[in-house]
């Protein structure tokens, strides 16, 4: 659910192409930058700076939804567990064990010895405090819905809710929590790995949420060295009493410099004021590559871009039309010529690092203008040979959408018109499920590396399925029903691995029906100075800043 950072913050939007690429990517291995090897020496101490966008909020379990914000949260708070994005292994942090026999009732045992930065011990009550705060409707948190699978969540919603606490969560003793879900869900631990929603909350914090937002009290490896300097900087220092060697950090001090515009961060880097640029603006990547070729980290990120079809619109109900439009997109050319090579063309709907992802499973994702034209003609063409392309115009999508539209114009002989508007009215139009009369752009960033997270939120029930797949009269009711059943089947499997075949079958249905045009998956473009070593990236924790060491 994390939102591309800087999407609606103060960026100068036109000049940047696709600001999506700032979240997530392929594991800790080095993939890129002309054989960049930047092994960490493991040396401790020192300080370095890294760019970020203004975060939303630090009060735990409240309103942190951008990748930049959750990056800082995951340094200042240590959650129950982390998920290794490559192996999907669960690395327990605060939790001693997380167990369930039926996938519905979970028992979490906590490690002893963790304290908050103010000295309070972290126990079961601390977690309950945070979770109940998040889920309680009148608190109006933006992460509360992560608890919607927990028993008693519904009673906490509405204007005057019946309950103030989650009935399904109990502190059995000081270090044991029991969670009861509404139905079995094998990936519940993965959901709980999302620290911005599942962090513990200190007593002092609960007493004064506002103060805690400016000067957070976490239980993580780093603590705030000073108050949050809004729009300027956030300085973290090592928390001296942090008990967990494994998840401790190397540098003594990390300064997050806050930039409103990506382009400025790069220029500050050039001037020697910044050690790590979290994401170089696409327009500057050519130059950066020329100048700092071996100081760039390109890693696969979880961002997924696609165009949806309004299936309620007759013009797009013929599957050949949907296939034709997808076939007439030269993904690689657009990536090379407009997006500076920083994307991976989609050959499926799951990015490579997600378990169960397969390559080349999308038959209609390659570029084949002849076949496209043939299918387009067979489908009878669009009314007036004219397509309306919908996208939001505050995210820097203009250029590549235009390149895509030019391709349709040339290969299919259709005229195009843009229906572009800011994000709010755009979502409003999509939400009507009737107003949008052409392909619409959307993207996705994962919360946890599970195929489920790429299926249910996009195509499932109550999701951003704005094209109304499975809606009445679309002729797709049956396939959608089957899709939902397969996802449920995957969710109910006792382990993630065992659920994979069902998820894959569900993904196949999406592609067989060509419900969307999969476009590409993002890559990061991280630039670092020779002052730091060991810069690595994970699709979930973003840059692994704890592992970065400072060259002395």
């Amino acid at each position: 659910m994390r939102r591309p950072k800087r999407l609606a913050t103060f960026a100068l939007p036109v000049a940047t192409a696709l600001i999506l690429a700032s979240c997530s990517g392929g594991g800790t291995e080095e993939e890129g930058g002309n054989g960049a090897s930047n092994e960490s020496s493991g040396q401790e101490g020192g300080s370095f700076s890294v760019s970020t966008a203004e975060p939303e909020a630090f009060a735990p379990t409240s309103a942190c939804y951008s990748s930049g914000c959750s990056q800082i949260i995951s340094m200042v708070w240590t959650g129950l567990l982390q998920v290794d994005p490559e192996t999907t292994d669960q690395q327990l942090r605060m939790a001693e064990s997380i167990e369930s026999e039926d996938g519905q009732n979970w028992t979490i045992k906590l490690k002893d010895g963790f304290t908050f930065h103010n000295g309070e011990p972290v126990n079961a009550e601390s977690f309950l405090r945070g979770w109940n705060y998040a889920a309680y409707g009148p608190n109006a948190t933006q992460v509360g819905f992560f608890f919607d699978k927990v028993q008693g969540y519904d009673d906490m919603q509405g204007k005057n809710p019946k309950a103030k606490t989650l009935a399904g969560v109990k502190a059995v003793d000081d270090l044991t929590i029991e969670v009861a879900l509404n139905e079995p869900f094998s990936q519940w631990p993965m959901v709980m790995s999302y620290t911005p929603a599942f962090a513990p909350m200190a007593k002092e914090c609960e007493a004064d949420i506002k103060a805690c937002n400016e000067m957070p009290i976490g239980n993580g490896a780093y603590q705030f060295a000073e108050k949050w300097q809004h729009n300027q900087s956030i300085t973290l220092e090592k928390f001296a009493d942090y008990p967990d060697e494994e998840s401790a950090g190397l540098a003594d001090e990390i300064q997050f410099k806050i930039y409103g515009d990506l382009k400025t961060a790069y220029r500050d880097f050039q001037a020697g004021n910044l050690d790590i640029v979290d994401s170089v603006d696409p327009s500057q990547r050519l130059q950066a590559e020329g100048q700092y070729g071996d100081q760039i980290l390109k890693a696969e990120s979880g961002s997924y871009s696609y165009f949806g079809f309004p299936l309620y619109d007759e013009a797009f109900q013929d599957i050949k039309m949907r296939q034709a439009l997808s076939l007439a997109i030269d993904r690689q050319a657009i990536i090379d010529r407009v997006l500076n090579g920083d994307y991976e063309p989609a050959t499926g709907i799951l990015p490579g690092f997600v378990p169960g992802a397969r390559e080349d499973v999308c038959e209609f994702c390659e570029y084949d203008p002849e076949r496209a034209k043939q299918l387009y003609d067979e489908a009878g063409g669009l009314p007036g040979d004219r397509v309306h392309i919908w996208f939001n115009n505050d995210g820097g999508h203009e250029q590549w959408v235009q390149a895509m539209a030019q391709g349709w114009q040339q290969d299919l002989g259709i005229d195009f018109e843009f229906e572009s508007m800011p994000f709010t009215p755009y979502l409003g139009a999509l939400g009507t499920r009737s107003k949008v009369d052409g392909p619409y752009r959307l993207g996705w960033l994962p919360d946890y590396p599970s195929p489920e997270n790429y299926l249910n939120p996009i195509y499932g029930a109550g999701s951003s399925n704005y094209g109304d797949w499975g809606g009445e009269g679309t002729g797709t009711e049956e396939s959608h029903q089957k899709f939902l059943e397969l996802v449920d089947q995957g969710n109910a499997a006792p382990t993630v691995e065992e659920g994979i075949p069902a998820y894959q079958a569900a993904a196949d249905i999406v592609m067989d029906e060509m419900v969307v045009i999969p476009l590409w998956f993002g890559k990061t473009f991280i630039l670092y100075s020779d002052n730091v070593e060991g810069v690595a990236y994970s699709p979930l924790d973003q840059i692994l800043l704890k592992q970065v060491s400072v060259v002395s």
Partner: protein
Amino acid sequence: MSDNVSTVELEDASAQDKGAATGSLWSDARKQLFRSPVFVVALLIVLVVISWAAFPSLWTNTSPEHCVLMENRQPPGNGHIFGTTVLGCDMYTHVIYGARPSIVIAVLVTGATALVGGGLGILSGYYGGWTDTIISRLTDVVLGLPFILGALVFLALLQQQNIWTVMFVLIVLGWTSMMRIVRGTVIALRDQDFVEAARAMGAKNSWIIFKHILPNALSPIIVLSTLYVGTYVAAEATLTFLGVGLQPPAISWGILIAEGQGLAVSGLPHLLVFPSVALILTVLSFIMLGDSLRDALDPRGR
């Protein structure tokens, strides 16, 4: 772009009372103008740009929609004298076609603000009293609202962002300075003998306004308008740069500059240089025209 629109304001404050124009003033002015090389050059540039806007196909045979993605961002040469754009279109063609929105916006917005601002200014200055109070306070509200903030709020509301909405916003926010200047001129005129005389002879207000006030207030309106044309061209480009002006696939200098700005400093300067030069030359020429016009119309300047 600190408030492109209201900035020219009062540049000419000291010449406010030059309303007493006569027929011979205009013909004198014309003679003087065509002797000035600056005026002639500026006029030529403006005429050329207007011809780009009106008849782009006179200047280029290439269709602006003919774009080859695989040939994008090419430097000048190779069949494209200005190189190619970010999306592989011919830059020269786009610079030519890009003139139209700028010119249309500049001319129509200038006309409309002159009409609205001039009209309200005359009403406010001539009648005074409550009319003046209401119009002046309204002017304060609009003038106090920073241009960009106002433009953003209006454009967010209108949802659609095209040449008409941009023009609407520029007009809504741009008429105020014209109103103030004209009001000042009219107040000075109102108490002059010939107006008093007409009133004493029982002339109706509307008659006085059209017969006496308007002709005399015309020269500041014209001078100010030519000065404004340039700033409206720049204002459109700024809005477009911020992403709230014209939208692709429209072709405009603002869009070209916004697209090219980042890449230009990364070694592809032609993406920025050509549209910027076109924009700067146009703005410059309009301002020079206004300048010369003012000098010529100001009898004391001789």
